[in-house]
Each structure stands twice: as structure tokens, then as C-alpha cells.
């Protein structure tokens, strides 16, 4: 069992094996749940293909064997008919788009999600009630029909709104298809043809040249200087050469396979690199296809806020349904007509459901999303806005996210000294000592022994931004020398190049021979750069302070120390040497032949070392510190080498200055790694190889045990495993990344963050959020916004829930005490969807009460959006006070019109009899049915205004949860005042403007009734201030625990 589990990790990147193995497993491997899920999705139609892929050994086969295997001919290619056959069998060479849920289903889902189902039931019951009434009396009142229609309208409107919001988010696979090269040059029927890449089939012979994207996974048959950029696959930015030789067991490492959608680099050499290859897999069967299916197979986890909202919906719906049913039973047992009881049930449900809240939440989230977009965080999935706020672990990719994704000269070593070069984004202040004559020589070598060139026409572009033709390290050297020496091209012109041996992987050096710029000096200058140990071999002297000295053991040791030190920083080191060719042997007219090598390549003079690194972005260390203080653990996950990864981690603070890994401690104490107490080490650097051998438990232990972790040399699968591991710690995990290889992890993470500039489209599509400026620091902004929105959503929900009690009580009192109905169901909807909407959105603009970046991220299981204190305080404290206030207005209106409260008790039955047209009030006056109904509407309006006035107070108190209103400032959030104004205006409009529309049940209300509830509103405000005061005075007390929401 154990053995099997281990084997699962033994294949990197090639997802097929993992999946295949798990399939054979007996299902006990819980840990592989994800894979199982992923498998289940694809099992049936892809299983066969996986099996075939399993023995990818094309890189080991000879050309002949390949020809046989794929039934093709390297010279003549496939025949058109055979190609057509294969095309019919395998399908086009394109990534199949994921199954989309049809728009209709998405739409319908919105229609039944959340509270909608309750409202549908309500509407249905309305029609049923009307139907029953109608069957017994054809002139039945249309009230129920109005209500049913309004409920349906509400459901449809909110559904359409939510659907519209969701439709904005895009689909992951869209861009994979964009990556497909449009055309491919293929040999078929002995002819070279250009065909759409989609029509490629296995066995096709294709030609690729510099600048092309590789049209499918191909086995290289012939190559000339072809180099590919695999960065979108592995995250390594180093170009890799491709030839026809089999160099590695692992298909990913071997040099004779090029992968679909990677780029063949445009070299500066002429002719540009070309390659001929045989297509070995197409479409979904390519490596990229597997990663794509891995990414789309990863289930879309519910965002934390979605979980919270669901939790909240459950609470509210639970309360609504249970109170509804309870009172249904009470009503029935009180001998109410069942039909009436059903109508009560509807009313109770409608009163309890905050119809407008989900729309409000959506608006609130999208407002924050807009605000974040301004700060360069583009949020694709609205709910992800909050996720960042609850993030407790960030798994960050290194290249391009933490670093600038560009090789830069970091250190120099000459004259037995190490100099530091400026690696900031603009290289502006290079402060090392440039007076030494050794530097003069070194700079000349750097300038001359370099084939990279600026693309023409960029005179006005700052040096660091100029586009360069050439590979990463040459570019770094070119820019470095351009910054320090000025016009490099001019210097090169003055020192005309007469011969050159380009860099290749066998020599590991690059040599060029130049005329010198000094016209009196007729010697040729041979300059060479390359792997330091190779260069040193070719040297017999070394330049110290401008003087050539014999290379003795001491200097050689110094060289090695420097080399090790720079290498230990994770930097790529290059050695530089030169040789002035004597004029007697090499006169001016001497013709150099690079093939015959008729010039010396040894006994050079060693000048110096220069090391390069992809330096961290300058804003990252600060951002990492901020994340730390916000209680967020930052883990680096990279495909790069552990040494480089560790160096970068140290420089950005992911591994803090004073923490050590087990290896560090072992080194320091000079003991074996096994002897070190693991508890002493705060940091850990784990390679993919080590991760492979870890059991899930060990990984859990690792993740829990070390606060600072770096994962290096990881594959996309392992990234997924790490993310899963973090999620098992109940952490909310954010993953940042830019490459295709990151996309599964981005998808799996609670929130995937892609880089906007450097990021591949696949990564952007898998992500929930895109950092437009590629700046890790933007994440901090995102976290802050996310936390703020969580706090503010609490306020919004508290605000909205409060009035539910004030809306619910009328029905309960109506049923139990038999008062004329204090507020109508439709009137309630005007509160929920009218007056309350803008104020609850306004709470989203509230500023933070304290420094939200200094507290720990919320625990996703413990710190709920809607918790007990919130519900209790909203329902049983403020809500109840509101209900009382509203009842006061209601009683005032009735009493002043003639019905004193004691008369109202148990008046309901008589009141509602249509044929009683001389109902006596407290003064002996007699009322017709219609007069009573008009009075009832006046009562609705009064109750409505009562709630409205107190909701203003509620809005004000909800501005803060802990601080006093005055600490927060009454006028800092102007939108709140817009909200209050909107409430009043809508209230005025409804009670005065629409008083005559029968269906709306509003009536004109005397102005003074607006003020009846004001004392209650003040009371609510005072009460809440007292609550907050006690919370501030006695933190941790019983009061604080039960009254702080």
C-alpha cells in the first residue's frame, strides 16, 4: 500500500501515470481524492488514451523505429489519405473545450438558488390560495394573485441580476485554444505544405523555425541551433536547445522532444534555428493537453464567502420555515381556516426572507472588485474578492511573481574581490569600484563577447525596457554594459569582430576575435566567456589590478571560493578571459577559420567572474513582511533549483534573515543532517524529489511544523499536492503563478492569482484574480480589501436581518392577538427591495474600524459571517426594539382614527368580514369595509414608515461594530447619507405618490406619524452605543463574547 502511494509521486508532470495508478488503487487512498475526482470526470472517454500515453518512449526510439511505429516516412511524410484517416480517428489537433454547463441551466440555477426556492413556494401557495378562494367565490380578492406575481417577479429579477453578474466571468479553456499556432509546415506526399495546425496528425513530419510555436508534441529528427522556451510549461526561463539525440530517460528532460505550445526561439544567429520533427501526439494527448485537463478537472471549490452565504441562507431559511410552520400549526389549532393559515405561512416566509440581500451582496462585491481593479487587482470571480481577505497561506510561484523574470547581473568578481551590482528594476546606481584596470578589460570582454543586440528603433525607450534579440544571459550582459559604458553597439563597431565561435553545449564557451579600437595597436583581441571552470582551464594567467599574473594555486583557490560563494547565492556564474594575439603570428591580414580553429584557445588571461540572477521585484520584501504581520504564511513553490529558490526566498523575506533550515544548522554545527533537532529549524527547503517520497501525513507535518517553507523543483502535480496539503490544514490558500504549469494549482487554490503581464493565458484563465501590474504587493491591497469587505458584509447582513423581526412580528401578533393586519406582504417587499437596498450597499463603503492588516486571517470554520451574536443581537435586541417602535406608530394611527388598542384585540375576524359595513370603533363610530381597508393601508404605511425611520438608526449604528460612531466619524462615509436620503425619498414617494394605487396598499399618511418612531430610533442608537462602550471597556468579558458580532 505504502509502496503504491509512493509510486504515485514518481512521475512528474506526466499526469497520466498518477491517474492510472490511482485507478488501480483500492480507493483507500483518500489523499488522492482529487485525482480520483478528476479521473471520474474523464474516466470513460479518456482512459484508453491515458493508457497509450503511459509508454511514451518515443524519445528512446531511433528514426527507423519511429517510422515503423507511426507508419510514416521521414522523407516523404504521410500520404494525404493516411493523414485524413488518422485525423478522422484522433480528431483535430486542438484542445477540446471543457463541457460547459448550458446557459439555460446556469440561468435556472440562479432561479432556484438561495432564497428563491422559498419564494417560489410562497408564490405557488399564493396561487393555490387564490384558486381555492376563486372556486368558492368568483369575486375573490385579487390580493393573493398580486402577491404571487410580485414574488415571482422578485425571484426572476434577482435571478437575472445574479446571472448577469456570473456571466461576466470567463472560462478557463478559452485561451488554451488561443495558444494554438495557426499554421504548420508539414511534409505530406513528399511535398511541403502549409496546413492549419488543427489538421496535424500523429506521424506528420513538420518543420519548425525560430519564432514559431510548436504545433504539437514532436520528436525532433533534425535540428539546427533550435532552442525552445519551455517557461510556460516548467517555469524555467532558460532557453533549452533541442537536437535529435536522446539525452534523458524522462521525456520532459530529453532534448529530442518539443512540446506543444512552447515557443521555438528566434536566435540572433543567421540562419535562425530550425528543426524537423515527427508529430507524436496531438490535441488533448499532448503534455499541455494533460495539464489543461488537469486544470479543468480540478473541481471548482466553493469560495469561502459562498460557503458563508450558504450558511447564512440556511440559518435564515431555517428560521423562516420553522417559524412559518410553527405558526401554521398554531393558526390551525386556533381554528383558523386552513387557507388563512397558508396565507399566514406565505407572509411569514416573505417577512423572514431578506429578498434584496443577495443582490446587495453581489453589488457590494462588485463595488469592491471595481475598487480593486483600480489598484491593479482584476477580479474575475466576484466571490474571490473576499477570499483573499480570509487567505491564511499564500503559495507563490517564484519566477515572474516574486522575481522580475529577467536575468540581471548581480555580482562581479575581479581583483580577488566580490562586487555587488544593482539589481533593482532600473539598474540606476551601480556603485562598485570601476577604477580598476581589470574592470576596463572585463567590461571590454562583456561588451564584445556578446551576440545580443537591441532591436532597432528603440532610441527613446529606457535601457532596461528595450527589446533585445538574444538569450536571457546575453541580454543581461548587454543591458548591464549599456548602462555602465554607454553605447555598446558603437564600442562593438570600433572593435570590429573578425571571427566568432558561438556558445554551444559541448564547448560551454563562446569566443570572438576582434580588432582593437586603438589604431596603433595592431594586435587582435580574443575574448572568451563561458562556464567558469572551463574558462579557468583555458587560462594560464590571471589579471589582478590590471596586471597579468601567473595563475598559481592560491589564486585558483580564490577563484573557487568566489565561484562557490556566488553559486551558493543561486546565481548563474560566467567566467571571462581574454588574450591579445601576438602580431607576429597573427598579422592584420590573418584569416581566422572557426572550423579549423587556427588560433589559440588556451593560455588565456583570466579576468573575472560575473554572476547573474533573476532578481526579486523591489516591492516584494515589503509585501511579504506585510503578509506576515497580517498572519499570512507565504510559501514559495517553484520549478527552479533549490539553491536559487532559497536565495530568492531569503532576499524577499520568505525565509527571514535569522531563521535556518535543518541543513543550515547542520552546516553551522558541522554535524550530520540527521542529528539536527528538527524543532530548531524554522525554515525548510523541500525539493520535488523529497516531496515525492513524502506521505500525506509527513507533508501535513511539514506544513504545520515550519513557518517558512520553500518548495523547489516541483511539478504541476506537486503544486496541486502542496495546495491540497495546505487546504487540509483548514487554511484558505491563495496561489500565485504565471505559467501553464501553475494553472492546475491556480484552479485548485481557494483563490488563484495570475500575473497580468507575464502570465500565460492559461494561468489567467484558471485564476480567480489577475494582478495587472504583476506586483506581488497588490496582493496585500487585495487582502486588505477582502478583509474589509468581510467586515462590511457582516454589517450589511446585520442591518438587513434586523428589520426581519419588525416585519415578522406583525404577522405573529395578527395571528395570536387578532389585530387588524399591521403591514401587508407587498409592503414588506417595498422595504426589502426598495428602501433598504441603497443603505445596505452604502455600508460597503465603510472604512475599517481598526488596522485590519494587523490581525490574523479569519478561521474559515470558526469566524463565520453570520454568527450567533450577530443573529441574536439583530433579531432579539435591535429587531425587537424596531418592532415595538413600528407598533407604536401603528397603534398611534389606529387610536387617532378611532380604534384604541384594546378595541383592536381580537377584532380581526369582524374587521375582515366583507359584509360588515357598520363595524363599531372605540368611539361608537361605524365603519364600512372599505373605510376599514383604507385605514388598514394607512396602518401599513405607518408601520412601514416606523420601520423606515428606525432602519435609519439601524444604518447609523451598523457603521461600526466596536468603535463609537463618533470615533468612526459620522460624515466620513458620504454614501451612508445618500442611503439615508434614498430611504426617505422612497418612503415619501410610496406614501404620498403611490397612495392611490390599490395593488400597492399604501395610503397617505400625516406628516407627524413620521416622527412617532424617532424616540425609538434614538433609543436604538443609544443602546448600541452602550453595547459598544462595554465591549471596549471590558474586552474578553461575557458581554464582549456575546454582544460583539
Amino acid at each position, binding site marked *: 500500500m505504502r509502496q503504491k502511494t509512493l509510486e504515485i509521486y514518481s512521475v512528474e508532470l506526466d499526469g497520466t501515470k498518477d491517474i492510472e495508478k490511482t485507478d488501480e488503487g483500492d480507493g483507500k487512498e483518500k489523499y488522492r481524492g482529487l485525482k480520483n475526482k478528476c479521473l471520474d470526470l474523464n474516466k470513460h472517454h479518456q482512459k484508453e488514451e491515458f493508457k497509450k500515453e503511459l509508454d511514451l518512449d518515443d524519445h528512446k526510439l531511433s528514426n527507423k523505429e519511429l517510422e515503423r511505429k507511426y507508419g510514416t516516412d521521414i522523407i516523404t511524410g504521410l500520404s494525404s489519405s493516411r493523414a485524413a484517416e488518422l485525423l478522422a480517428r484522433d480528431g483535430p489537433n486542438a484542445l477540446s473545450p471543457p463541457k460547459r454547463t448550458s446557459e439555460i441551466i446556469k440561468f435556472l440555477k440562479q432561479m432556484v438558488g438561495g432564497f428563491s426556492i422559498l419564494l417560489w413556494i410562497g408564490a405557488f401557495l399564493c396561487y393555490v390560495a387564490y384558486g381555492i378562494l376563486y372556486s368558492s367565490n368568483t369575486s375573490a380578492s385579487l390580493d393573493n394573485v398580486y402577491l404571487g406575481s410580485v414574488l415571482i417577479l422578485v425571484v426572476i429579477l434577482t435571478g437575472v441580476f445574479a446571472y448577469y453578474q456570473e456571466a461576466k466571468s470567463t472560462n478557463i479553456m478559452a485561451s488554451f485554444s488561443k495558444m494554438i499556432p495557426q499554421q504548420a509546415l508539414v511534409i505530406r506526399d513528399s511535398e511541403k505544405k502549409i496546413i492549419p495546425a488543427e489538421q496535424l496528425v500523429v506521424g506528420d513530419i513538420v518543420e519548425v523555425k525560430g519564432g514559431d510555436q510548436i504545433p504539437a508534441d514532436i520528436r525532433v529528427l533534425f535540428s539546427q541551433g533550435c532552442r525552445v522556451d519551455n517557461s510556460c510549461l516548467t517555469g524555467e526561463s532558460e532557453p533549452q536547445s533541442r537536437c535529435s539525440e536522446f539525452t534523458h530517460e524522462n521525456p520532459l528532460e530529453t532534448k529530442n522532444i518539443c512540446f506543444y505550445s512552447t515557443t521555438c526561439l528566434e536566435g540572433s544567429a543567421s540562419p535562425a534555428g530550425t528543426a524537423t520533427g515527427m508529430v507524436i501526439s496531438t490535441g488533448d494527448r499532448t503534455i499541455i493537453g494533460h495539464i489543461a485537463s488537469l486544470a479543468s478537472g480540478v473541481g471548482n471549490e466553493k469560495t469561502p464567502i459562498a460557503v458563508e452565504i450558504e450558511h447564512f441562507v440556511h440559518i435564515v431559511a431555517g428560521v423562516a420555515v420553522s417559524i412559518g410552520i410553527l405558526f401554521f400549526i398554531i393558526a390551525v389549532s386556533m381554528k383558523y381556516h386552513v387557507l388563512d393559515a397558508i396565507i399566514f405561512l406565505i407572509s411569514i416566509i416573505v417577512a423572514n426572507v431578506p429578498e434584496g440581500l443577495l443582490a446587495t451582496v453581489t453589488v457590494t462585491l462588485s463595488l469592491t472588485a471595481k475598487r480593486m481593479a483600480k489598484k491593479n487587482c482584476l477580479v474575475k470571480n466576484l466571490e474571490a474578492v473576499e477570499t483573499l481577505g480570509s487567505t491564511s497561506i499564500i503559495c507563490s510561484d517564484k519566477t515572474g511573481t516574486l522575481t522580475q523574470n529577467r536575468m540581471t547581473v548581480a555580482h562581479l568578481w575581479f581583483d580577488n574581490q566580490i562586487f555587488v551590482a544593482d539589481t533593482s528594476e532600473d539598474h540606476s546606481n551601480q556603485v562598485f569600484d570601476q577604477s580598476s584596470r581589470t574592470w576596463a578589460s572585463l567590461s571590454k570582454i562583456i561588451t564584445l563577447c556578446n551576440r545580443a543586440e537591441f532591436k532597432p528603433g528603440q532610441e527613446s525607450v529606457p535601457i532596461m525596457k528595450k527589446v533585445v534579440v538574444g538569450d536571457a544571459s546575453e541580454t543581461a550582459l548587454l543591458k548591464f554594459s549599456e548602462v555602465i559604458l554607454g553605447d555598446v553597439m558603437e564600442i562593438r563597431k570600433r572593435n570590429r569582430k573578425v571571427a566568432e565561435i558561438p556558445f554551444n553545449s559541448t564547448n560551454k564557451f563562446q569566443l570572438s576575435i576582434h580588432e582593437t579600437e586603438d589604431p596603433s595597436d595592431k594586435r587582435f583581441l580574443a575574448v572568451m566567456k563561458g562556464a567558469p571552470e572551463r574558462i579557468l582551464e583555458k587560462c594560464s594567467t590571471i589579471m589582478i589590478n590590471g596586471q597579468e599574473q601567473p595563475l598559481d594555486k592560491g589564486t585558483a583557490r580564490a577563484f573557487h571560493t568566489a565561484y562557490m560563494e556566488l553559486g551558493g547565492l543561486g546565481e548563474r556564474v560566467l567566467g571571462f578571459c581574454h588574450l591579445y594575439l601576438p602580431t607576429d603570428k597573427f598579422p592584420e591580414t590573418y584569416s581566422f577559420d572557426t572550423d579549423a580553429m587556427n588560433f589559440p584557445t588556451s593560455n588565456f588571461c583570466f579576468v573575472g567572474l560575473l554572476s547573474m540572477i533573476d532578481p526579486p521585484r523591489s516591492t516584494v520584501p515589503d509585501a511579504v513582511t506585510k503578509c506576515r504581520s497580517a498572519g499570512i504564511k507565504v510559501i514559495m513553490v517553484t520549478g527552479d533549483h533549490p539553491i536559487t529558490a532559497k536565495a530568492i526566498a531569503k532576499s524577499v523575506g520568505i525565509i527571514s534573515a535569522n531563521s535556518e533550515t535543518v541543513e543550515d544548522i547542520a552546516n553551522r554545527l558541522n554535524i550530520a543532517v540527521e542529528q539536527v533537532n528538527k524543532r530548531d529549524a524554522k525554515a525548510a527547503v523541500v525539493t520535488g524529489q523529497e516531496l515525492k517520497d513524502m506521505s500525506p501525513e509527513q507533508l501535513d507535518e511539514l506544513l504545520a511544523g515550519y513557518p517558512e517553507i520553500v518548495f523547489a523543483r516541483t511539478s504541476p502535480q506537486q503544486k496541486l499536492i502542496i495546495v491540497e496539503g495546505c487546504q487540509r490544514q483548514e487554511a484558505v490558500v491563495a496561489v500565485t503563478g504565471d505559467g501553464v504549469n501553475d494553472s492546475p494549482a491556480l484552479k485548485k487554490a481557494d483563490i488563484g492569482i495570475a500575473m497580468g503581464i507575464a502570465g500565460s493565458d492559461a494561468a489567467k484563465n484558471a485564476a480567480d484574480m489577475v494582478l495587472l501590474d504583476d506586483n506581488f504587493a497588490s496582493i496585500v491591497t487585495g487582502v486588505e480589501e477582502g478583509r474589509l469587505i468581510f467586515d462590511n458584509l457582516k454589517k450589511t447582513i446585520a442591518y438587513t436581518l434586523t428589520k426581519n423581526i419588525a416585519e415578522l412580528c406583525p404577522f405573529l401578533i395578527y395571528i395570536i392577538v387578532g389585530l387588524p393586519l399591521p403591514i401587508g406582504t407587498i409592503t414588506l417587499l417595498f422595504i426589502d427591495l426598495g428602501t433598504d437596498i441603497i443603505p445596505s450597499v452604502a455600508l460597503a463603503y465603510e472604512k475599517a474600524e481598526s488596522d485590519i492588516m494587523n490581525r490574523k486571517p479569519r478561521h474559515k470554520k470558526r469566524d463565520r459571517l453570520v454568527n450567533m451574536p450577530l443573529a441574536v443581537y439583530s433579531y432579539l435586541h435591535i429587531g425587537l426594539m424596531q418592532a415595538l417602535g413600528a407598533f407604536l406608530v401603528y397603534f398611534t394611527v389606529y387610536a387617532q382614527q378611532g380604534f384604541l388598542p384594546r378595541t383592536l384585540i381580537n377584532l380581526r375576524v369582524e374587521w375582515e368580514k366583507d359584509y360588515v359595513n357598520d363595524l363599531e370603533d372605540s368611539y*361608537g*363610530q361605524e365603519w364600512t369595509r372599505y373605510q376599514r381597508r383604507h385605514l388598514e393601508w394607512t396602518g401599513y404605511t405607518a408601520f412601514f414608515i416606523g420601520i423606515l425611520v428606525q432602519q435609519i438608526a439601524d444604518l447609523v449604528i451598523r457603521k461600526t461594530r466596536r468603535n463609537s460612531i463618533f470615533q468612526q466619524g459620522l460624515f466620513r462615509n458620504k454614501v451612508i447619507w445618500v442611503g439615508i436620503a434614498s430611504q426617505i425619498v422612497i418612503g415619501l414617494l410610496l406614501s404620498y405618490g403611490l397612495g392611490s394605487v390599490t395593488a400597492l396598499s399604501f395610503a397617505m399618511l400625516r406628516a407627524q406619524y413620521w416622527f412617532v418612531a424617532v424616540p425609538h430610533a434614538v433609543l436604538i442608537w443609544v443602546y448600541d452605543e452602550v453595547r459598544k462602550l462595554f465591549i471596549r471597556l471590558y474586552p474578553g468579558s*461575557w458581554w464582549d463574547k456575546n454582544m460583539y458580532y
Partner: protein
Amino acid sequence: MRRQLRSRRAPAFPYGYRYRLDDQDEVNQNYLADEEEEAEEEARVMVVPELDEEEEEEKEEEEKEEKEEEEGQGQPTGNAWWQKLQILNEYLWDPERRMSLARTGLILVIYFFFYASLAAVITLCMYTLFLTISPYMPTFTERVKPPGVMIRPFAHSLNFNFNVSEPDTWQHYVISLNGFLQGYNDSLQEEMNVDCPPGQYFIQDGNEDEDKKACQFKRSFLKNCSGLEDPTFGYSTGQPCILLKMNRIVGFRPELGDPVKVSCKVQRGDENDIRSINYYPESASFDLRYYPYYGKLTHVNYTSPLVAMHFTDVVKNQAVPVQCQLKGKGIINDVINDRFVGRVIFTLNIET
């Protein structure tokens, strides 16, 4: 087997020691039959109260000590007492959640006071409300105006269907009318109310809390419809009497010299379906002396004036829709939504 279980737990013991005891010991005790282990277990249990006591507040400690004394007596009986005590202890003071019965009580008390003060507030508010409201005069009467109209006899329906020759079909109208008119009996009216001069308001100045006198409206005013001469109110002859009553409104006064009049006609259809109607009192109006109404608190014996319509010649054997309207200044009788303001519509279907 069990030993394994224990040994596996053992290493973790020092860390979560107390915590574990709290939630596991009782369960474990039940499992353990092995005497050796039971002893061990007991030893562990014994530690619990000590540890707990350290945590507890002084008061509860005292409480505890009392309990321990009790326990001392119970000790010989064995472990059962211990367990019960544990349960009781946890009920009073649950160390895990740091909650106790006392706290639950505290919460209840706090809520009691909170709601009590809310009740006080609402009572105060209602009291203030009543201070502003006169028990004699409603503050506003705009909703109850203009006056509505009702007819008698009335039994859930405005359709008068009866067969002259079948007394069963109209007997209930007669009973209803008789019952309604009991309050109008001449003797009663003469005894309770005053005979005030007709044609003018019966205005009674003075404090509003003074009892007001009411004007007589005698049953005999209704003449043929009084039921005195014809105890069947004309139903037995196919000439039914229907009484019309205007809704009371405090302070309502018809125009001086222009009392509210009643007039009935066929609502839809042939005007001649009703050939004659006799009104009693003959003026077919509500005399001014019955106004204003001072409210039921002071105007106790107020008797609503009536107008009786005697449908002496109505087409028989078919439904005749009748609309009776009030006419006069300040009377509105054409509100679309309210078919009882200033008018009343009913159908007569007299079969012979």
C-alpha cells in the same frame, strides 16, 4: 486490544492531560472491567477535581466543598456516586466551555431585565399616546367620513329572496327586524331619552366628559314599518319593509336646514319595476336633532335614526336591484371602490 488503545494514547497524555480527562474519563470508566486499569483510571479521575478547583472561582469552590462533604458520606457506596457527582459538576460548571448553570441563569436574568425595560419603554410610549388622545372625541375622522350606510334586516346577504306564501322564507327577516327594533321601543325611548325639538341640531355644550342626552327615536315613527301594526313588516303581503341606517360618525352634522335624505330606485333595468315606495318618517330624512353624535362614552343612549323603506309595489317573481342613496351636503354616494358609502345596493326577489 484495549491495552493497545491506551498505550497509543499515552504519549499524548502530558499535553492534553486535563482536557482529555474531561471528555473521556467517564466513557472510559464504563469500558474498563479490568480491575488493574480501573484503579488507574480512578486515580486519574481523582485528579480532576483538584485541577478543576484551581480554575474555579472562590464561590464555586465553596459550593464544591459542600458537595465533597456529601460525597464523603457516599464514598463507601462506590463509584456510582462519583459518576453522578461528575455529571452534576459538569452541569454546574463545564470546564471545557467555561459555562455553567449559573451563567445560563445570568443570561436569562439579563434578558429578563432587557425585555422588562423594553416593556417599560413601550408602556411609557403607549401612556404618552393615550395622554394625547381624548377618550371622547377621535383625533381624526377623515377615514370614517363620509358616512356609510347599512340596512336592516341584514343576515350576511344583501339579496332579499322570499316567497310570500311560505312564511319560513321570510320569518327570519321579521325576527331580525323585531330584535333590532327592541331598542327603539317607545316605552324605552321615552324612559331613557329626551324629546328634543326637530329641525335643529341637538347641541349640548359643556365639558366633553359630561354625559350627553340622546334624542328619542321611537319605533312608532316608522309607522307601517314599525311592526306594531303589521307584525310581519309587510313581508306576509309581499310589501317588505327595509330599514336604512346611516353609520355613526362622531361630530358629523348634516347641512343646517337640509337634512340627509334617502331615495331609492331601481339600480339597473326598468325603472317601473318599483312602482311605489313609502318612506317613514315621511320626510325620508334623518332629522337634524339626532346630530351631532358625541361618542359612545358620553352619548350612551344615542339612538341611531332610521329611515324605513316600504316597498309597497314591486314587480314580483324577478330580482330587482335596488339602490338607496343618501342625498345631502357633505354626503358622497358614488365612491367606486366602496359600495356602502352614501348608498346601499340590494336586490328584492319577491315570489308569490
